[in-house]
């Protein structure tokens, strides 16, 4: 194995590989920053470009896009409160408040270093522990996926600042929207009004663009003062924040582990990982009241977790040949086009490519630090643009992004409709994060609960028995109960002080 690894290491440092990583990372940073251009689209877009490259070079370019775009979704989240990719939704919570306080540079710095360290952690896990972890992941099934989603729902309570009822309503609205489309087991159409555009439900990316971009456009036209623009565009302290990220060892490691594990679970995705890590950091923090108001701990947790998903998501892809999320599904297409079959044979027959690819991921995780900082340094100037121009640009990007996803005009209309909902949320100061969680978790919870029930032929007693006897299930059940208990306790403690 070590011989194979050193072969991979040598491959990763070939000039062509380094160049591919550089190109991939640079492209990825721009793709991730723009709302509507997701990691999945970025990788799919550039697969044809890699046709003529040797496989390892092509793959490292695609890997660079995946990793860098997962990070750079945070740039727009921090600077404009618009997540560039779904993985950056939790980053908005504390990243944008920091920008409002004139700490944009520091927020970007914390974000890029935390992302890099989280990414490197998960890549090392992929390198050394992938086969063992993929066997463990096979012990997870529909009951566990359902319970993980349920655990995510319990986080909504702790995400809510102030009015719990409003947050719950947001969460429920998200869950209802997630029901639109074909029933995952019976094929029955729900809430589609006969429109084919709604048969697959409302894509998460469409919801996110609407929910975050449109309210920002409207509020910009209501214009903040020039002084506020000046404050927000300050960019200092980015480079020196590495020390502060490393100082939060426990937070960093906990969030990276959460991200890696959620990454391995098929269908969960990076937005869930960053919310779970964010929630755990808040519960462990000595200053939980700062979360949502510019907490550096919260930002570091969200950022290290979403990039830790990248290494985790490649575990089942490279060891078993099963992609766990849309990006790795596209990446698998890339592997296949190059004549490589993902799975154990990949490491046996072509160790230089398999390990070369993994080492190139480590490089990508390092290279997006300088590129990300450089790009962000100039992007921050965007805040100083006249409001009308910035608002129009964001609106144009939102429309292009919504259209580009599937090439359907209906998606643009959906995006605008959800944008109005998002604006109403900001008017009534309802946090949008619970709704996003509802959207993300609804589909995962529903399909896996109905599948789990079908596997036991509809016998509810049998399903409950499974929840209590399967090793990972019982662990998740306990986590859910703990989370709900802590939520209640927080409510009891908070009440007297609030009045």
């Amino acid at each position, binding site marked *: 194995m070590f011989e194979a690894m050193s072969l991979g290491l040598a491959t990763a440092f070939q000039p062509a590989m380094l160049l591919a990583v550089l190109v991939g990372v640079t492209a990825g940073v721009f793709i991730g920053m723009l709302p509507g*251009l997701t990691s*999945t*689209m970025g990788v*799919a*877009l550039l*697969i*044809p*470009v890699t*046709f003529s490259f040797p496989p390892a070079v092509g793959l490292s370019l695609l890997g660079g896009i995946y990793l860098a775009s997962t990070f750079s979704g945070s740039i727009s989240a921090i600077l404009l409160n618009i997540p560039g990719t779904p993985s950056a939704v939790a980053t908005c919570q504390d990243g944008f408040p920091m920008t409002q306080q004139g700490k944009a540079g520091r927020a970007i710095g914390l974000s890029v270093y935390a992302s890099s360290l989280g990414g490197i952690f998960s890549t090392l896990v992929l390198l050394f522990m992938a086969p063992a972890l993929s066997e463990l992941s*096979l*012990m*997870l*099934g*529909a009951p566990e996926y359902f319970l993980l989603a349920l655990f995510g729902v319990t986080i909504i309570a702790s995400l809510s600042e102030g009015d719990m009822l409003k947050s719950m309503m947001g969460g429920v609205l998200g869950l209802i929207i997630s029901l639109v489309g*074909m*029933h*995952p*087991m*019976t*094929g029955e159409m729900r809430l589609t009004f*006969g429109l*084919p*555009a709604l*048969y*697959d439900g409302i894509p998460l990316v469409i919801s996110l663009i609407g929910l975050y971009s449109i309210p920002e456009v409207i509020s910009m036209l209501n214009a903040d003062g020039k002084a506020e623009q000046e404050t927000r565009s300050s960019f200092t302290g980015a480079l020196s924040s590495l020390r502060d990220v490393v100082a939060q060892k426990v937070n960093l490691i906990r969030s990276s582990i959460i991200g890696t594990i959620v990454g391995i679970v*098929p*269908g969960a995705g990076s937005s869930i990982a960053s919310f779970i890590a964010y929630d755990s950091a808040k519960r462990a923090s000595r200053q939980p009241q700062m979360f949502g108001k510019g907490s550096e701990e919260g930002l570091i947790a969200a950022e290290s977790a979403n990039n830790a998903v990248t290494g985790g998501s490649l575990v*089942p892809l490279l060891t*078993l*040949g*099963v*992609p766990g999320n*849309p990006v790795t*599904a*596209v*990446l*698998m*297409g890339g592997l*296949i*086009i190059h*004549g490589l*079959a*993902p*799975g*154990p*044979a990949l490491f046996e027959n072509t160790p230089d490519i398999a390990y070369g690819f993994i080492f190139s991921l480590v490089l990508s995780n390092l290279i997006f630090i300088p590129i990300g900082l450089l790009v962000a340094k100039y992007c921050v100037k965007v805040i100083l643009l006249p409001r009308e121009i910035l608002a129009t640009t964001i609106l144009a990007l939102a429309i*292009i992004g919504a*259209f*580009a996803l*599937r*090439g*359907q005009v209906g998606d643009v209309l959906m995006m605008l409709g959800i944008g109005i909902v998002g604006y109403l949320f900001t008017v009534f100061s309802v946090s949008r994060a619970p709704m996003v969680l509802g959207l993300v978790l609804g589909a995962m919870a529903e*399909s896996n609960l109905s*599948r789990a029930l*079908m*596997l036991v*032929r509809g016998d509810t007693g049998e399903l409950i028995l499974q929840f209590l006897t399967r090793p990972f299930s019982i662990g998740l059940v306990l986590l859910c109960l703990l989370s709900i208990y802590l939520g209640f306790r927080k409510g009891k403690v908070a009440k007297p002080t609030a009045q």
Partner: protein
Amino acid sequence: MKMKLLVSALAAATLLPTTAALADGYPEKPITMVVAYSPGGGNDTVSRLMAKHIEPYLGTRMVVENHPGAGGQVGFTRLARADADGYTIGLLSSPSLFMIEMLRDGVAYSLDDFQAVANIQSDPILLAVNASSDYADLAALTDNIAANPGYVNVGGDGPQSNVHLQAAAFESVLELDTNFISYSGSGPTATALLGDEVDAALLSTSSALQFIEAGRIRPLAVFDSARHPALPDVPTLAEAAGAEVPSVGTAVRGVAGPAGIPQERLAHLESAFEQLLQDDEFQAAAANLGIVTHYLDSNDFTEMLDASREATAQYIDFMQ
């Protein structure tokens, strides 16, 4: 559209060898290939592989454009309504094309809206169990299903997919009652089989090959009239069960355009795909991916689509 622009720009940046062109200059720009499914799946893979190798025969680049949505309905509708100028073609996938039309209201296309160009691939479905399973052969599995109606969990892509249709035909011909569990694609189905969540699974042969080669799953039978070239030891269902189960679920993928493509341009496209399928490099890459090519010219492909539509109609009501 941003993606299209970028891809066309990339295409324009490359020098195009103009080995083949008609008198009217066709093709003078890249040809768009509409794929009705997301990047990374079986339809997308074969399309992108063709895009990689077809340029010399086509005389221009072929650009894959994914229009996923509603299980293929969005992309198929788009292809049916495209300009019939020979610059937009697409990949049809049978029986999905027909199942959508039969199961849904208000589908805006029918078979008449398409002009078949050439069939490319046929990907039969196989029935497999985990390598550590107690079921030694198909008979052991079917005996158990017969003894415990509705109790044996069989996973597959679904609901309302070609796999689901094959499951329905299997149950109907052999008079069995399985508990069909839907997963969102062949990947998640394979994961469930590897993790022993289901007793058996129906998988597309192309997606199952890697797991068979790795020794993780054991194929019991393939739903096809002849054995699969990559799996010469695996019996057909007729050999294993002694009964003819029609291979209605076999994913047949071929190139088509909107009806009304000028005859000369159609012939140019047809011959480009014919030459592509004889290209050694393309064949080697396809074999590597478990893609079994099955060339049919425009006329034969049209006939096969008609037959496939009939067979689909026959079994579609058996899906629960």
